[in-house]
Structures are given as structure tokens and as C-alpha cells.
């Protein structure tokens, strides 16, 4: 990448479309990719790899629908560029279930009816899993605060909280 200021908009474009090689592990599968620097992780997943389970709700990091797990941490995939994550391991909603069936958080979302239209759901689920690993949520208020980066316009929040409480409880019981 050049460091000098771009003189024309054409310079911007030339930089932006020059492809770079990165490798990513997504849901356990290795990908060797040629990506343009202006492609966000979200657009890489949705538009280039056809992994549409991760949702675009605003493209501005304001709604959380695009939440994925990057190296186990929950992030807004619309706010980061793919090129920045060479060698990273990503888990999306498509990678949570395995041969034994659904991830317990996925199953709990169904049982508690913690969604309606389902569009924010992949982000809510990834966010729940990320939150559990963070280990910061101790109280109901903590859960509510720490899940507030994921907007649910259908208003399933109170059911989502039930899932998170249950997941935290299970996590506590499993961790000695």
C-alpha cells in the first residue's frame, strides 16, 4: 500500500481493487482468498463466500446483526476489513451446530422463542456465546447491558435474556 495521499479518486480505486492474498479459517474450513482491501469481513462472508447466515442490518456497527466470533471474540464484522485478518479463525452462525446437533444456545433460542423474524438472531447467538466467554456478566443488569449492542426490532429481548441466563448457568456448572 502506498502511504502518500491520494491525488485523485482514481488512485483510491486502484488501491482498493488491487487484490491481496489472505488465508482464513472459517467454521473449521481453510480458505485461501484474494480480497480487495475495501471488502469488509461481512461482505466477504455474504457476497463473496455466500455465507449469508451473518446478517447486514446497518453496515455501520450500530445494530450487531453482523456479529461473528473472531478468534473466539464477538465483533461487528461490518466494521473490519477482511485484509486485516490474514490467518484468523472465524466462527459464524453456520459453524455452531455440529454432528451432535445444535449448539445449546441455538436450541435455547428456539425453546424460549428468543426471536421472531430471525434476522438479528445469528448475531444475537454469536453475541451470547461471546459474552459467556468474556466472563463479565454477573447480574441481570450486566446481561442486559452487554447484550445491548445487538438490536432486535421485533422486541424479543426478554426471551433472549432468558437464554443468556440459562447459558451462563450451564457454563458455570460445567466450569469447575
Amino acid at each position: 500500500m502506498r502511504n502518500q495521499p491520494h491525488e485523485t479518486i482514481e488512485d483510491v480505486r486502484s488501491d482498493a481493487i488491487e487484490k491481496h492474498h489472505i488465508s482464513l479459517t472459517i467454521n473449521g474450513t481453510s480458505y485461501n482468498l484474494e480480497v480487495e482491501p475495501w471488502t469488509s469481513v461481512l461482505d466477504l462472508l455474504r457476497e463473496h463466500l455466500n455465507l449469508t447466515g451473518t446478517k447486514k442490518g446497518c453496515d455501520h456497527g450500530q445494530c450487531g446483526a453482523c456479529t461473528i466470533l473472531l478468534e473466539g471474540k464477538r465483533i461487528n464484522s461490518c466494521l473490519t476489513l477482511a485484509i486485516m485478518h490474514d490467518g484468523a479463525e472465524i466462527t459464524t452462525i453456520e459453524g455452531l451446530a455440529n454432528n451432535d446437533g445444535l449448539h445449546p444456545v441455538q436450541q435455547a433460542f428456539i425453546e424460549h422463542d428468543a426471536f421472531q423474524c430471525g434476522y438479528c438472531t445469528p448475531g444475537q447467538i454469536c453475541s451470547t456465546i461471546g459474552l459467556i466467554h468474556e466472563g463479565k456478566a454477573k447480574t441481570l443488569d450486566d446481561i442486559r447491558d452487554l447484550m445491548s449492542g445487538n438490536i432486535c426490532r421485533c422486541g424479543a429481548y426478554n426471551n433472549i435474556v432468558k437464554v443468556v441466563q440459562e447459558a451462563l448457568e450451564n457454563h458455570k456448572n460445567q466450569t469447575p
Partner: protein
Amino acid sequence: MATNHIGKPKNRVDGLKKVTGSAKYAAEFNAPGLVHGVVISSAIAKGRIKAIDTHDALEIEGVLHIFTHENTPGLAWFDLSYKDMDSPPGAPFRPLHSDEIQFNMQPIALVVAETLELARFAALRVKVEYEVETHNTKLADSLDEAIEGKGFRAGFEPPKSIGKFEEAYEAADIKLETEYFHGAEHHNPMEMHASTVIYEEDGGLTIYDKTQGVLNSRHYVSMIFGIKRKKIKVISPFVGGAFGSGLRPQYQLFMATLAALELKRPVKVELTRPQMFSFGHRPITIQKLKLAASPDGSLQAVSHSAYSETSRFEKYVENVVNWPKKLYRCENVEEIYKLVQLDMYTPLDMRAPGGATGVYALESAMDELAYKLNMNPLELRLRNYTDEDKGKEKPFSSKTLKECYRVAAEKFGWSQRNPEPRSTREGHNLVGWGMASGIWDAMQTPARAKARLSADGKLEVGSATADIGTGTYTIMTQIAAETLGLPMEQVTAKLGDSSLPFAFLEGGSTTAASVGTAVKYVCDKIARKLLKEAGKIDDSPFKGAKMEDVVFRDENIVDKQDDSVFIPITEVMKLRGLGTIQKKTTALPNFLKQNKYSRNTHSAVFAEVKIDEDLGTIKVTRIVTAIDAGRILNAKTAHSQILGGVVWGVSMALEEDSFMDHHYGRFINHDLAEYHIAVNADMPDIDITFVEEEDHVVSPIGVKGVGEIGLVGVAAAIGNAVYHATGKRIRSLPITLDKAMSEVSAI
């Protein structure tokens, strides 16, 4: 009646797809050679496009075409061709039709490129010169330009006064005159509007659209582009929320279709979040209420007037002032409803259109009246309780609002309330309790359904309706499984496909009553056919049996009198050599029966708020609501519908507000950071009770609908609680901390 599926808290049948990311929404369908369209929005609110320079953008490799008014082929000539099933009176907006700018952020061009990034980049290089004309976007300053809010629109009841308001008002002992305001609200479903249009080799189109009515989208495309309906397939299996935004075809559908037809390639157009503020909103209203009562609280006169905004080209009307006659017993009611035409896009039905806002003002005013009368606000409602719609002079088909009040008040602990404002404290917090009533329409619309039973006992039911998160897939499955005595796993519900039988738009809380009835009827037809076939089997115990003699249970036809006499459904199919049984049916509302009644859902809402006296922060801590919505088909999904409605009420009361920058005539907080929507941390405890009842006037299956009633009344209950906490009445929504601060500290 004992049921196996109906009424039970069943998990959503589409839940698995939704939690695994395999549910596909409109922007998620791929096709070989798919290209991306990005819409350019106008920067001015009124005027003309003097020049639009696409040269630099088109030079970029990978940019395929830029559609503007200058190169868009001649399309349908008549306004009528642009009308859709939800159009208000007027001349619909025609995208790329001419150089005229009618509202800010009007779509003026579509850039199509090989990738999304490229299209977005190229859009920045399109230069537009405008000839700016003076616009007006100020409702409050333009009331003298108001016109009557009238015109034909499905579901709209023009205002109709009864009795003699002026005389009764003058003569009454206790009078109240008050005014309420709320800002514009925007639907903001989490999924942004998108259309993916596939151009088929035979010239037909396969369209994946975000819509509340695939048939509406098909009609729209067919009329404008002159393509036969049978050559257009509109598919929308999953809709990431809509709340009314998908009732009308939005401009991305037009854009993607235009591009696909011209380029003969699959095209996807997804709007941006700011563009989600550009195609219709819940209009601002300024409402005035005059209430008069005798000292015992009996209402003597009510006047409800509203000024609302609309565009220059369509007269958007909704039922804002029509609720007092349905909620209260009063002989003299004046209703005034006026529109002001402004340079903005036409408002758009948004969850409980008119009701959410009209009942907010009415129920806030009723609270004011209660204080003026020194009367318990609940007592005032009960004093004026009506079993008759005073406007229509008809009884209600069902109404258990009294029971709703009782249940919700008891659960909330309303009797413990100290009526004195500012009387309850908890540390720094002022605690307030408020209540309100809610009401919404209950309707059945015509709907068709088809069903196919296979030899293996699997059933498929279908109707061209939608599931926008409402649970339509699930209740269709439950009704079908119940009717034919099948496990839900053996039933597949199909919707969101224009090749399925007719259903009206998924909106107005009508779908469960309408499509549910059609599904019931078509499965009844299959049941009758099965029984007839069963009677033809040698030595059949069901020879000559009638439907009332049997039940369908556990995959069998069972003799009602004797459980040991039964025949498996698959056995009937096998012995009669039937591969499938297919039926279609139409469920029409019984208009004669329905017209004898006024048909509504009702609710009682109680709210608790805590307001920090020093900081003005307002927290809703509890909502208790009891709902009268007819038969509940699924206790789990219906609960979620009401839950969502209540969350909308909290959001409406405390957060949602768009700011029109009148200099530019544009909503400036057009994103989810600055347009606030309730988040998890804003949530109170929410307690929901359905008061048991079935209403077989509204629909043969006893359903009244749950999509909207959960929202109505919530904002008023919260506003009334804020008054009880602080002793100050904030008469404009949202009740933000700056308003609360100035009010609280003014004491």
C-alpha cells in the same frame, strides 16, 4: 375443546432455519452472474435535476450501467399502473420517471456494477446538479394549509361526529382541553429492504423481494413493466421484520427489476440504513382533545382532532381520531382529522397505524381528566365502559376489556397506588404508576389456501401470505395438523410465493384470522374426502359416516362414539389407491354476520417508571398488560407478538424520534446510532396475560389477531406514570431526559 396443537406453546417450525443461518432473506439469493445495484438518493427536497453526469463513474471497469431518468425506458403511462394494494389516495411516486424531485433522498439513479464495493464507489462519482425550489417540511407551521383527511382506503374510517359536542361541552361541569404531539417514527426492520431479480431465459422474472405481500409485488411489477403476471414469480420465504414497511413495494424492487430487464442479468439492490428512512414513516400528529365530564366522571362530550402530515402526491390517511367512540360511552363526540401536504415522501402504515398515536393522546387526556376529577384513572375508565360502539351503534362481537383491567390491575398491584403525584420515592428515584387502555381492529380478509395430502400421510398447505416474524408458518402448521389429526412434523406450510393461492397483504393483525381460516377450510375438505373414501373400503365401519360422527386424531379417522373403531389415514390412501388428495379453497368473511358487530381487540396496560430526580433519566421498570384478542393459536408465538408490541411502546414513549432538518428537508438522524430504538438495557419486566375468549364473528376459528394490540396504549401508560412520578405532564413523545429534567427541576 381439547386440542393437540392449537393453543399450545409450540416452538416455531421455522426456528431451526433461523438459528442456523439457513433461513434466506431477499438479499441472500445468489445466481450465476449476479450484479449489484446501488441507489443514489437526491440531496434536495424539491426541485429539478439540471444535470446528472455519469461519465466518470461509467469509465470505471466493472461498472455496467447507470440508470437515471434520462435513460430509463418509457414505462407505464398511468398513475394507476403504479398503485399497489396499500396505496393511499393520490398519484404514487414513479422512480426515475422525470427530472422532478419530490422529496429528499428520492432515488434518482441506480449504479450497477460487478461487485457491491464497485457500485458503491462508482455512485460517489456521479455528479448531480439541481435546480432547487423552496420546500416546506414543517407541519406545525402549516396548519392553516390543512385539508380534510378523507378518501377511500381499505380499513380507513373517515371521521364521523355524533351528538352535539359543542352544546354538551359548554354545559358540562368539568372540562379539559389539552394537546399532544409525537415525532415521526421509522419502521427500521433489522433487514434492510432488498430485491434480487433474476432474468429468466424466457423473458420472465424470478424476484426475491422483502415484502408483506408477494402478490402485491407481482402486481406492481406486472403493471409497470408490462409483463404478464404468470411470467413473474415473487418469492419471499423469510422477511427480516417489516412492521408495515413491506406493505407497499419499495423502490428497490422497481430498481432491481428495471436493471434486470435492461441488462438481462440477475441484479440485487439492497438499500442502505439511511435509505430506510426515505420511503415512508409514521407521520407526526398534533392532536387536540377536549373532554367534558360530570363530577361522577361520566363523559359528556369528547372532541378529538388531529393534524397529520402527508406528501404532495398522496393523501395518506389512517384512523387517528376514531377511537373514543369505541372505547367510551359518550353521546357527543366530535372527530376532526386533517392533513397537511408537505415536501416529503408519503407516510406509511407502521404497526398499529393511527391507533398507536390516536390512543396515546386519548388515553393521556383521560389520565389528565382523572386527576381533574380527583378520581382513580382506572375507575374513570370503568365509569365510561361501553359494550357498544357508539359510532356504529353496534355491539362488540366480543369484548373482555373489563376482565383485562381487573387481571392487569391485580397483577400490577394497582390498588396499592398512592394517587398523589411525587408521592413515591426509592432513593434518588421518583416512582410513578400509570395505566391506559388499548384497542385495535379485528378483521378477517378473504384468503385462499391449498393442501396436498400424500399417501405417506404427509401434508403440505400453502397460501401466498407472509411470515414477517409473526409465526404464520407455525400457526398454519398447527391448524392443519389439528384438523387432520397429524403430528406437526408431518405438515409443511408454504407461503411467500406468488404461485400459491391468493392471500391479502400480511398486515393489520388479519393474517391468523384470514389465512388460518382458509387453512382450516381446505383441511376440512381433505378430511371430508378421506372420510368418503374410508366409507368405500370393504367392510368399512365408516360407511355413510358423517363428519360429525368422527374425529381425526393420531393419524387416524376415529369413531367419536367408540375409540376402538378407527382407520389410519395412510391405510385409507393405500386401500383406495390414492397417491395424493389435493384441495383448494376460498375463505370469505361472513359479511352479513360481521356487519352486525363492531370488531376489536382490547388491552389494559399498567406501567411503572423510575426517574432519577437529579439526572432526569427515565427507566420503565415494569409493564403489566392483559389482552383480549380472541382465541390464541400458539401461546408462545402470540406471547412474543405482544412482547414485541410492548417493546415498541416503550421505544415510542422514550426513544423514537427522527429529526427533520427543515433547511434541507431531510431526516438527519437517519441511522441506528442516532435514531434510537429500545435495546436490551431499556427493557422492563413485561407481564402478559391473555384473557380467554373466542370470537367466532371475527373469524370462524375464533381468532382476533395479536400483531398490533400489544403496542397500543403502552406509550400513554408510560407517560401517565411519568406524570404520577413527577407531577408534570409531558405532552410530547418521546419523553426524553431533557424534557424530564426541565419538568422535574421546575418543581
